[in-house]
């Protein structure tokens, strides 16, 4: 009987080890059709190749448009806030003035005045595109021409307006409730890295290389509110466990990002410093293309406002010391924060989301099923063993 107990204990320990190894993290449930896996079934290799070429063409086209805009904006130095260039349609002077007025208020709200780096906003108004020789130009991504060693004081943001904001700018659509406020938010979000260049100038080489390596995901938004409204941020899309796609989203992030969501300082440090070790050459022209779904490519949630929040927390002088530092990023950032990067970031993360619990956990129905099978197996084994005993 003693040996039977040993077998039972060994069996249970084996089950426990298997459960620890294979069970998904706590609370993970599948939403059926995964939200973060491709939007449509993948096409044929030829179609994929054509789409990749079209994507390359769009990126190159956006870069060329930005380079074309650079000489056009040289002469406009009357306004401290960004010069605005419209492409795709000719606007009435009233429409231009309206947009400039909103931009001026956005600029003041960001605490900016005359800046060392001049920002230009190139707004691409949507128009019917009929050419069959080339793909449709970039219409759903923002692109930036950041300053480089040949143009140290110019930053241009290329902002496709899409159908809604095009008709709004052209005056064909009335401002709905809070329409102007949302338009201001759209303009503010469109400034992207250019807002950082304007506020803090050109970053030092380590910071520039670090941000280039991660495509500026930590410096997409200088404002203090959410990127598309008072509270809306990438965290709203992905960080709320009530949404059915929450766990799909969690699984799509790198391990460090998930560890940071769980409140672990080591994970937060790794998520922040991803790319900091790379020695990246800054290209000329220095074109930054925002990811199409930038909230998917983040290493930190809500990363788009991370540097803006640091700047507001530590103050201008300490942030400038970090921004222009020649020290490695982790050293410079820790000096500005006056705390280890991981600890500060974990606290910052907790301000947005309740830390998720990591580690294996079984769903209730799974536990009941497993226990039933285990009890059945034990009873079966015990019954068989008792019959084979010699009395």
């Amino acid at each position: 009987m003693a040996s039977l107990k040993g077998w039972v204990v060994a069996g249970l320990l084996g089950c426990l080890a298997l459960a620890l190894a294979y069970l998904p993290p706590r609370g993970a449930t599948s939403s059926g059709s995964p939200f973060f896996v491709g939007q449509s079934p993948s096409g044929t290799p030829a179609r994929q190749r054509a789409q990749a070429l079209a994507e390359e063409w769009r990126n190159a086209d956006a870069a060329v448009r930005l380079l074309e805009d650079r000489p056009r904006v040289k002469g406009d130095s009357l306004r401290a806030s960004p010069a605005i260039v419209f492409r795709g349609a000719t606007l009435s002077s009233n429409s231009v003035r309206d947009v400039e007025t909103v931009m001026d208020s956005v600029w003041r709200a960001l605490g900016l005045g005359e800046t060392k780096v001049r920002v230009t906003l190139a707004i691409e108004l949507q128009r019917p595109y009929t050419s069959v020789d080339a793909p449709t130009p970039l219409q759903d991504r923002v692109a930036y021409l950041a300053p480089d060693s040949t143009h140290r004081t110019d930053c241009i943001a290329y902002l496709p307006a899409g159908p809604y904001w095009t008709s709004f700018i052209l005056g064909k659509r009335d401002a709905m409730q809070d329409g102007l406020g949302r338009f201001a938010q759209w303009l503010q979000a469109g400034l992207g890295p250019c807002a950082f260049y304007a506020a803090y100038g050109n970053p030092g080489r380590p910071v520039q290389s670090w941000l280039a390596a991660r495509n500026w995901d930590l410096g997409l938004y200088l404002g203090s509110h959410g990127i598309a409204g008072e509270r809306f941020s990438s965290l709203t899309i992905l960080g709320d466990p009530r949404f059915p796609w929450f766990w799909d989203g969690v699984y799509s992030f790198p391990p460090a990002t998930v560890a940071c969501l769980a409140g672990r300082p080591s994970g937060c440090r790794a998520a922040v410093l991803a790319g900091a070790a790379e020695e990246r050459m800054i290209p000329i022209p220095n074109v930054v293309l925002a990811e199409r779904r930038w909230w998917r490519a983040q290493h930190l949630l809500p990363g788009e406002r991370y540097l803006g929040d640091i700047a507001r927390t530590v103050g201008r002088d300490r942030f400038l010391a970090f921004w222009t530092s020649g020290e490695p990023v982790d050293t410079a950032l820790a000096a500005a924060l006056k705390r280890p990067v991981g600890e500060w970031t974990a606290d910052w993360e907790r301000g947005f989301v309740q830390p998720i619990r990591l580690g294996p956990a079984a769903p209730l129905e799974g536990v009941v099923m497993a226990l039933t099978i285990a009890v059945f197996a034990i009873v079966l084994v015990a019954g068989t063993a008792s019959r084979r005993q010699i009395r």
Partner: protein
Amino acid sequence: MKIILVLFAVVGMPRLLVGQRWERQVEERVQRTIAAVGSSRGLPVVRRSGMLNTDEAASFQTTLEERTSYAIVAVCDDDCSRLQLTLLSPSGSDIAKERNSESLPTLRFTAATSAVYGIRVVMEGCRWNPCWYAVAVIPLGKGAPSR
């Protein structure tokens, strides 16, 4: 009356019309320095200006006349904390380097022979990139060749 209003509007317009604040700052600073040092009559003052990020350098060449003393002065804007100024021989080697005067490095040099010399500026410290700088090569007059 309209003309007066327009004039007031133009006068009250932001000074952005005449260039950026930092450019003007450096321009005024270099003019004051030239006036303070005092240049020799008949010989032109060579000036160069531009902007640099931290740790970036810029160079230019200028002809220095034999047995003429020169003051080579560099100034920079308020955000610049340290500027290095180097005089280079026609072959490209360092003749003199000034890096101790923070944002107002000055070199004095008398050319032994007329030749094309190089001048290099390194922005060693800039709090808010880029920082504007200006260099002036001010002839002080004929003198004995010395360094």
